[in-house]
């Protein structure tokens, strides 16, 4: 693939997210650098007044790395990195763990930071941990339960159901009606 702005090979594949619209850019190293610099200073020839939540969502990868990465899927919700790049929306809270290494440069580019320093949920009274990773695992367990039922493996399905109930009970989530 050639760079969109010159004849050199495109080695950077950038996904831009602007208020829900996804735009793909394929650029050589020089043009990618120029583009990213311009995005960072928020300028360019035409200062964009649009897109409240602009800030480019940028993934800089070589084509081979990207092809491999695209196939990677979330253990909980099953979204692939490719789907995320296309839609610009993640599938579930676990994606931040599953794709942490891939998301890091992208988040750093958007926010200029890679660590939350703001408020935290106050779970002291309930004795629950701040991180909700355990509760999010029920998304994967529910999926596994559906598969087990599909395969008529009812014993496995019951086990999974009980696991889900245990976790939800610890988090004071009422079982489904």
């Amino acid at each position, binding site marked *: 693939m050639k760079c969109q702005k010159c004849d050199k090979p495109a080695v950077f594949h950038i996904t831009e*997210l602007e208020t*829900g619209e996804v735009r793909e850019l394929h650029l050589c190293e020089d043009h990618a650098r120029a583009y990213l610099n311009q995005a960072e*200073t*928020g*300028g360019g020839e035409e*200062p*964009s*007044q*649009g*897109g*409240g*939540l*602009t*800030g480019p*969502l940028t993934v800089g990868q070589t084509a081979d790395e990207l092809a491999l990465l695209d196939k990677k899927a979330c253990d*909980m*919700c099953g*979204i692939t990195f490719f789907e995320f790049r296309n*839609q*610009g*929306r*993640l*599938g*579930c*809270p676990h994606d*931040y*763990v599953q794709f942490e290494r891939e*998301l890091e440069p*992208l*988040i750093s580019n*958007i*926010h*200029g*930071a*890679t*660590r*939350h*320093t*703001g*408020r*935290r*949920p*106050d779970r002291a*009274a309930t004795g*629950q941990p*701040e*991180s*909700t*990773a355990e*509760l*999010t695992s*029920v*998304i994967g367990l529910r999926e596994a339960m559906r598969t087990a039922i599909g395969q008529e493996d009812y014993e496995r399905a019951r086990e999974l159901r009980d696991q889900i109930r245990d976790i*939800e009970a610890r*988090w*004071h*989530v009422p079982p*489904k009606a």
Partner: protein
Amino acid sequence: MKLDALTQATGEWLKGTGPESDIVMSSRIRLARNLAQFPFVARASDQDREEIERFLRERIATAPMGRDLDYIDVGRLEEVDRQLLVERQLISREHAEAQGARGVAIDKVEQVSLMINEEDHLRIQCLHSGLDLQGAWSQISMVDDQIGCVVPYAFHERWGYLTACPTNVGTGIRVSVMLHLPALVITRQIDKVFRSLHKISLAVRGLYGEGSQAMGDFYQISNQTTLGRTEEELVAQVGEVVPVLIDYERRAREFLVRETQQNVHDQVSRAFGILRTAQTITAEETMQLLSRVRMGVLLGLIGDVKIADINSLLVRTQPAHLQKIRGIELDTKDHNIERARYLRQHFEAAGGGASPN
């Protein structure tokens, strides 16, 4: 809740009160939150969305502040009613146009709105009149605390509050201030001002109208980043730039009065004249003219018109409001005729409007 009652009332944020309300229309803060035990909305099945909606609706009702809220099932509303909520800034355009189970909980004065199943499972919004970011922040952090006690928000040690789009991750906060900047538009300084804002990573967009097109000289300034700084720091980041913009706009208004008094007086008087006499008028032109009249009132060039009235007309002349007030379905052409009639009747009833000179 009866939606028709909304058209009779004026949302708190339109009262035209609060500090600096000659230039700052409103201050808004929103927080993006998600439940830990469900996929994000875009990946949730129809059944998931129904469960998310029910879970949040029931839990929010158990929070102390939740008891005073009215709940609206947005999924079951007709299009005109959804549009009405958008025009009052109680839900987003995206929420109105989305699919599946979704709703919004609103307090009596329309300051607090809780959108369920927008892009994130929960979007909390507080909207205050004038420049009142501190008031909006203390209210929304109270609401967030109360809901956080009854709902397991998805949270990660390093990334903070987890959101469907990485542009919101961390604090999930969007702080915005809506400004009326007609003098900066007339004196052609507005682009220069906004270029300087982009440099400090604040976003600017026109308030009304589609996309980025600013209509009626109303602009919204908001933070672009949500991670790596505390909520208070992000509130301050937007808050710090507002007095500067207010100062620019005031100076531009003074300049207009000093250097082009007759010209400006002529412009705002003509705008007022059209609003009082037109037989057909589009929403766009109405917005533009109301903006000029608003400035004329503030500059003392038009008497006997209240700012709160102009603010209210800005909302009530939009399509869904007009349709609800008139109680009939209208096509675009009828809309323009009805809008003109509504404006004429309004100013006739209000009387006055004579130049003080």
